[in-house]
């Protein structure tokens, strides 16, 4: 190849040619996975180095874009950048212009662990701090993205379960510095909670990636939730997603819909309760009448027992019983079996020979009469020797 056939450029021409080549030959937008190194704010723009540990390229987030980002990259954060190439012809320098930067999953989980450990050590995360939820709240606030399928699901569930609760829907911003905005909204809402009659707060966000929920690991936001004046219920992301906000909340539901189910009573169950009360009301009347009737009957019986005739009858009955007893105890029955009662002239009972002498006049009483006898002879029995 001869020197004559080589293209010849001025520096400006060369740089312009490179620029135009890049413009035509390179993807207008791409995703770049990298680690952020040395981020620096200069005149409102964020300059940073994007690296994989060995190779690197410089990057920039223009101030106008920076304000819209929900996440501010820190040194060492793993990120996914939506970017395009910027080539500055003046110095032939190449930079990735970031249109969006999101933390990578590992960054999000690292932040989650950091905040969780900190708040656990301080006792801010503590299941014992969880407050009971109101049983039939008259008014609740729902913080969620508007419009969203999560909100639609929640409103439908609320209408089905419990139409008596007033819902205040407060949109959660999805762009820009989301955390400070949510914090500010939560603070104003806390101040007005009494005025609005709020009895609970639902913080909800429909499914997406775990990275989308990173804002709910924000330390300041979570501290605010932990000390919120009314009970907080979270329904964030999917069933498996756990954020620090879930840990400081008074109740964690797996999904936005589940949060509404946890907070609002079930209309059908309540209807059953009413049916039961209706029958208790009816029973209270019938039962009482039944008991009063029974009492009346008992008193009629008691009254009857107080009548003079009844008294005389009872006295007679007592007397007859005593008579029977007396008869049972009298010696008459011994006489009937052939035994006799002996008494002396003085009428004293004789039970042995000591009080009898020859010539005494004795009376012998038997079952059918008595006879008079005189003692002619006294014969003592021989003492019993066969023992």
């Amino acid at each position, binding site marked *: 190849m001869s020197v004559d056939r080589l293209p010849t450029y001025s520096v400006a021409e060369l740089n312009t040619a490179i620029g135009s080549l890049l413009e035509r030959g390179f993807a207008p937008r791409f995703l770049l996975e990298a680690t952020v190194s040395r981020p620096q704010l200069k005149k409102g723009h964020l300059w940073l180095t994007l690296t994989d540990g060995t190779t690197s390229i410089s990057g920039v987030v223009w101030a106008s874009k920076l304000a819209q980002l929900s996440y501010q990259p820190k040194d060492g954060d793993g990120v996914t950048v939506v970017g395009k190439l910027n080539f500055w012809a003046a110095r032939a320098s190449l930079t990735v212009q970031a249109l969006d930067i999101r933390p990578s999953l590992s960054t999000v989980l690292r932040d989650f662990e950091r905040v969780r450990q900190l708040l656990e050590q301080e006792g801010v995360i503590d299941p014992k701090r969880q407050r009971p939820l109101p*049983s039939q709240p*008259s008014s609740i606030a729902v913080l969620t993205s508007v419009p969203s399928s999560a909100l639609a699901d929640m409103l439908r569930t609320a209408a089905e379960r419990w139409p*008596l609760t007033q*819902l205040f829907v407060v949109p959660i*911003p999805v762009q820009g510095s989301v955390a400070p905005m949510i914090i*500010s909204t939560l603070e104003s809402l806390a101040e007005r909670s009494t005025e609005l009659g709020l009895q609970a707060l639902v913080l909800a966000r429909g499914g997406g990636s775990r990275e989308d929920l990173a804002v709910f690991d924000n330390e300041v936001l979570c501290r605010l939730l932990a000390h919120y004046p009314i009970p907080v219920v979270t329904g964030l992301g999917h069933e498996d997603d756990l954020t620090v906000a879930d840990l400081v909340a008074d109740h964690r539901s797996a999904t936005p819909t589940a949060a509404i189910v946890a907070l609002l009573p079930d209309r059908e169950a309540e209807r059953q309760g*009413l049916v039961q*009360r209706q029958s208790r009301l009816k029973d*209270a009347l019938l039962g*009482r009448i039944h008991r009063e009737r029974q009492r009346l009957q008992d008193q009629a019986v008691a009254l009857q027992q107080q009548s003079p005739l009844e008294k005389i009858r009872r006295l007679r009955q007592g007397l007859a019983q005593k008579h029977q007893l007396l008869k049972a105890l009298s010696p008459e029955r011994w006489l009937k079996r052939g035994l006799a009662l002996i008494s002396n002239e003085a009428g004293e009972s004789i039970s042995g020979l000591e009080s009898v002498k020859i010539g005494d006049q004795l009376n012998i009483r038997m079952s059918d009469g008595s006879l008079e006898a005189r003692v002619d002879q006294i014969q003592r029995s021989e003492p019993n020797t066969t023992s």
Partner: protein
Amino acid sequence: MSKRQVNKEHRDRIEVWRKDAEGLSYEEAMQALDLLLAELQNDNVPLADLQQKVLHGEVYLRRCQNLLDSVEKSIIELDPTTLNATNNA
């Protein structure tokens, strides 16, 4: 007092209870009903008042039922910055 007068007085009283109950929330009406039930279940209520108490309980019960049957739901969207209502869906 004639029977007709008694009936009218009776109806008027129920009407007053009904109006009072209209001002109660579901929870309040339910509480009032439960209190009445507890009272009725011990036998201290004079027999003469029994029927009245049961009717009063039924007024509370009906209030709860009506509230449960209502389909209206109230949703107010608040502006996240000012917390003023932005609509009344």
